[in-house]
């Protein structure tokens, strides 16, 4: 644990080191820009109007510097702060310094307001164990040192609290900064937290299947990495695509599924790589790891045989491609992707490689291309399940629709090569998309939508190269949008805080700051933005990249965020002023990139492939921009073009739409931002290049965030702390006794005589403008030093008096000793005295004394015992009295009870007699009733007898009559 603690808490002893504090106060330390270190510490020696003389701390050199270039240094109290928003001097130098100090101490995570900044440590840190996860579980952000887990937990909790709440973790940064690693950590954390819940709650059968889902979720990464990552100069395992992972949770906070969306796969890597870089991992995994059977099935060849692997077999140190292959295959198994689909995927991968080996030649008398050797074509056809002849024909002389008829049009060598490359790229991309789709299917266990989700966006950060192309425009546009989201979130949160604290301050929505630039890129019309213009240009016949640039300049030339290149013969075509800085764009091949054309004939062939997998990949052929369209542009064949309008979409359009959806999702979430920073380009641990980091801070919006912070009151201190720390500055402002925190602070601030514009007093905190605290801190330091000196003077006095008193005592002791010695010397030889000393112990008197003492002691003891006994007696007596009283009470109670009982008994007797009487009466009545009934019975019989008699008498009478 202690090891991990070192990487979490670090050593912040410097914070309260009074020495450093005193140093800071006395020297007026500042940051001075430096070529080598970014910023160097120095102390102001002299001020000469606009300029200052600064002595550099390290070298001792004195430099003259313009005042505006100097950045204030924070008091040592703020050394290695966990949240840089707390810094009172918020400037680039301080942010860089803080990050650096923390990084050197092994602390890679740092908060910067809403951001969590993480610097790639380039080594293993023991801060990702289960123990640590448990440490962070359920903790609030400020309770624990900065960590990606803290951010994740916050996201998870806020999602749990509000069922419809959605959270997103956005990480962005340069390649190799650790985006993907941190994304993995987030997933690891969620998989652990959200499933450990479950195993506790219901350990029944469901637990197992859920565990499987989490396993699959974690396994999705190696698969995606195998197909979407590659080794680049900067990063051995660089993600060549952006992704948005959505982890769905049910109402109880259990993971119920996940969904991955990918953005901007760098598909050109499949056909060409820069020096020392690799293509996608899977190519190498497959070539190294496939067994003999698989090799022949996939028609694999040696590394050197493939033209698309520009650099042959480049290996990654510390990684065995062969092992990785089996790992990937295992991952497929866990994802329950069946064998035939796996083979299908690998076939496409192999086919992509084979496509590169198709070579074309120019025929001698015409421009037409021919293919002297069709081995590669055969292999491709075999792998993709299409007919070789059809395939070759489709490449060399595809059928093109002219008007209403189809004609075969022979292709030049360049055209054929382009078509093959486009095909390879498209195949790889489609295969990748299919893979993502397949993973999503595997991860989406329950068909129902989860109650809420946590989204994790892992996307490249801002890119500024010397010359930037369409891809950079897309990624920068994305980042511009994300930054806008961040600014907006920050604005909302700030406003909430100010409202909560009842502070009167109206912010401007910082989100709007970025709107002009976004408009410049994406606006539909009036005037149309760059992407729209590009799309428009794609529809025009005879349009070229140049005409596109002209159009952009014409439409957007006056846009404040747009700039024409300064020099006429500049390499760049135009510049856009992004929030991160000015970016030069070169519009080479933008039309082509935007349309991404494909050979339609081949696509149709593939669509009808006998290989089920391939056919599936090419299901939607009709959305493709045909090669002929592009070629046709120069031949003014736009008639055919128009008829197809609406059928297909340009890359820009698709991306804009995808991004739009993403932003809509994110806007409804409660975003958390993680910014990854690459410390150096050498993949070396413990090294931090200041300029590189500064550039990234600028690009990823950390500095932008700080700029916004500075507009408000970035430093907040709760009343209690403010009072504790600065009360010393206002000794008599607060009256004695208890005082409400707010009131006390009001009094203190009044006594400090601050400009009202420098502070606001809220409900629980005091708000300060940037830098005010540094000033207070300085004053406090001076004051403390004063008091300390006085106190030290007193201490010295105290010590001196003590020493003096001791000396006085010594003097006295000396005198006593002298006197005694003198007496001794006198007595030493006096015989009578000697006799006396000898006899004295034998004397009764002396012994009596001893006995007396002994008796006295005994007496004392007996007395004590006696006293104790008395006390005890007293106690017992009182106890007895108590008990007696209790007994009496009980007796009384008993008496009362007995009386009550007697009464009740009497009552019972009465009632019994009454009952007896009544029973007798009842008896009588029953007897009477019986009697009566008998009598009734008797009466009946005579009656019937009588009536019969009467009847008989009558008839007899009648007979008589």
């Amino acid at each position, binding site marked *: 644990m202690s090891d991990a603690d070192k990487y979490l808490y670090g050593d912040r002893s410097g914070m309260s080191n009074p020495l450093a504090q005193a140093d800071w106060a006395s020297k007026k330390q500042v940051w001075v820009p430096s070529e080598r270190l970014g910023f160097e510490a120095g102390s102001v020696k002299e001020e000469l109007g606009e300029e200052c003389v600064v002595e550099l701390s390290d070298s001792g050199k004195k430099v003259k510097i313009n005042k505006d270039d100097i950045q204030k240094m924070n008091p040592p109290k703020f050394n290695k702060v966990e949240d840089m928003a707390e810094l009172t001097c918020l400037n680039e130098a301080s942010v860089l310094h803080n990050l650096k100090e923390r990084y050197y101490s092994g602390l890679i995570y740092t908060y910067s307001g809403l951001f969590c900044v993480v610097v790639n440590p380039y080594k293993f840190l023991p801060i990702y164990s289960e123990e640590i996860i448990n440490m962070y579980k359920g903790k609030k952000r400020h309770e624990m040192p900065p960590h990606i887990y803290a951010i994740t937990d916050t996201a998870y909790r806020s999602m749990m609290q509000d069922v419809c709440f959605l959270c997103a973790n956005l990480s962005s940064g340069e390649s190799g900064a650790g985006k993907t690693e941190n994304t993995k950590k987030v997933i690891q954390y969620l998989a652990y937290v959200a499933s450990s819940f479950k195993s506790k709650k219901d350990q029944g059968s469901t637990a197992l299947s859920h565990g499987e889902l989490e396993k699959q979720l974690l396994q999705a990464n190696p698969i995606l990495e195998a197909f979407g990552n590659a080794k680049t100069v900067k990063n051995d395992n660089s993600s060549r695509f952006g992704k948005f992972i959505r982890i769905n949770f049910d109402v109880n906070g259990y993971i119920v599924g996940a969904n991955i969306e990918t953005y901007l796969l760098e598909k050109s890597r499949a056909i060409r790589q820069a020096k020392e870089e690799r293509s996608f991992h899977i190519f190498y995994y497959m070539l190294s790891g496939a067994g003999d059977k698989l090799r022949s099935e996939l028609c694999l060849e040696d590394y050197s045989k493939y033209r698309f692997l520009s650099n042959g077999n480049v290996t990654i140190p510390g990684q065995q491609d062969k092992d990785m292959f089996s790992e990937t295959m295992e991952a497929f198994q866990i994802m329950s992707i069946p064998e035939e689909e796996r083979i299908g995927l690998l076939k496409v991968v192999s086919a992509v490689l084979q496509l590169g080996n198709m070579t074309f030649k120019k025929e001698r008398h015409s421009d037409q291309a021919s293919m002297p050797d069709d081995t590669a074509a055969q292999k491709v056809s075999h792998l993709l399940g299409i007919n070789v002849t059809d395939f070759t024909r489709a490449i060399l002389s595809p059928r093109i629709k002219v008007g209403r008829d189809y004609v075969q049009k022979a292709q030049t060598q360049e055209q054929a090569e382009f078509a093959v490359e486009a095909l390879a790229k498209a195949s790889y991309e489609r295969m990748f998309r299919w893979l993502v789709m397949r993973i999503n299917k595997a991860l989406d266990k329950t068909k129902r939508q989860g109650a809420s989700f946590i989204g994790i966006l892992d996307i490249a950060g801002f890119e500024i190269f010397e010359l930037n192309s369409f891809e950079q425009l897309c990624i920068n546009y994305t980042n511009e949008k994300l930054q806008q989201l961040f600014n907006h979130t920050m604005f909302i949160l700030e406003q909430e805080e100010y409202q909560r604290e009842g502070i009167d301050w109206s912010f401007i929505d910082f989100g709007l700051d970025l709107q002009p630039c976004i408009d410049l890129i994406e606006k539909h019309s009036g005037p149309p933005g760059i992407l729209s213009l590009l799309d428009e240009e794609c529809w025009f016949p005879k349009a070229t990249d140049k005409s596109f640039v002209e159009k952009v300049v014409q439409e957007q030339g006056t846009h404040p965020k747009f700039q024409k290149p300064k020099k006429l013969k500049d390499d760049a075509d135009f510049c856009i002023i992004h929030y991160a800085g000015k970016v030069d764009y070169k519009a080479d091949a933008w039309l082509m990139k935007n349309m991404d054309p494909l050979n339609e004939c081949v696509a149709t062939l593939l669509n009808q492939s006998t290989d089920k997998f391939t056919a599936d990949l090419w299901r939607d052929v009709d959305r493709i921009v045909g090669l002929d369209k592009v070629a046709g542009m120069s031949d003014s064949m736009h008639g055919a073009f128009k008829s197809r309008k609406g059928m297909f979409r340009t890359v820009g359009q698709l991306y804009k739409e995808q991004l739009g959806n993403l932003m809509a999702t994110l806007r409804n979430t409660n975003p958390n931002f993680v910014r990854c920073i690459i410390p150096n380009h050498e993949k070396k641990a413990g090294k931090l290049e200041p300029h590189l980091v500064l550039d990234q801070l600028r690009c990823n919006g950390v500095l932008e965030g700080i700029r916004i912070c500075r507009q408000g009151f970035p430093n907040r201190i709760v009343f209690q702390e403010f009072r504790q720390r600065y009360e010393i500055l206002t000794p008599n402002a607060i009256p004695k006794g208890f005082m409400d925190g707010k009131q006390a602070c009001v009094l203190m601030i009044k006594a400090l005589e601050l400009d009202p514009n420098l502070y606001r007093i809220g409900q629980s905190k005091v708000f300060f403008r940037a830098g005010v605290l540094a000033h207070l801190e300085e004053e406090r330091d001076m004051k403390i030093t004063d008091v300390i000196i006085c106190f*030290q003077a*007193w201490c010295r*006095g105290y010590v001196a008096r003590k020493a003096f008193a001791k000396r006085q005592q010594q003097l006295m002791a000396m005198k006593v000793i002298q006197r005694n010695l003198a007496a001794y010397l006198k007595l030493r030889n006096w015989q009578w005295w000697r006799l006396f000393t000898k006899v004295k112990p034998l004397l009764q008197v002396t012994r009596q004394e001893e006995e007396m003492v002994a008796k006295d002691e005994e007496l004392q003891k007996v007395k004590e015992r006696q006293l104790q006994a008395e006390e005890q007696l007293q106690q017992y007596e009182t106890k007895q009295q108590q008990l007696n009283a209790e007994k009496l009470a009980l007796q009384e109670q008993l008496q009362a009870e007995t009386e009550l009982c007697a009464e009740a008994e009497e009552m019972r007797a009465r009632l019994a007699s009454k009952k007896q009487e009544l029973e007798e009466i009842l008896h009588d009545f029953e007897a009477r009733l019986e009697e009566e009934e008998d009598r009734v019975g008797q009466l009946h019989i005579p009656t019937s007898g009588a009536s019969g008699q009467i009847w008989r008498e009558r008839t007899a009478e009648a007979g008589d009559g």
Partner: protein
Amino acid sequence: MAPKKDPRAPIKKAEPAAAPAAAPAPAPAPAPAPKARPVDLSAVKVEFTADQMEDYREAFGLFDRVGDNKVAYNQIADIMRALGQNPTNKDVNKLLGSPSAEEMANKRVTFEGFLPMLQTIINSPNKAGYEDYVEGLRVFDKEGNGTVMGTELRIVLSTLGEKLNEAEIDALMAGQEDENGCINYEGETSDRDVSTFASCLVACI
């Protein structure tokens, strides 16, 4: 404990001498202070009572290690302190005309020369009061419960301002820390233990 109590007595008594002296009226208070020593009236300086003078001379004599009835410059501050003053090193340095380290060790002054110095210090006493010290110490009170860590205080006193040396700090801190290594600096102590820091502070002011 016994040897501790005794020295405290003169300190306590000596203190009031400082305050009234500030207002130049001669103080009757010091009379009981020197009762440990026989009173012998001799030379009288205008602003001190005879009692005080005798006291001072006695103390002065104690510091004379050579026997020439003089003390070295670097002892002056300590004598003043022994006599109940709390001058800062800066104050004393100013008084002596900012001597060099060598001068501090070698230059010597007579009792007659010393008296006006003492008078000066007494006339401008250290203005900080108990409250100020408590405020100052509160800064280092991490828990906010009226105590500071002994180790922390050691560091503060040995690194800030007019730094105290190890020996001085040891002498100062002897017996001040409680079982947790904390020092109570604030207000009344629960058991009225005379040896607490706070009571020393109170006593001194």
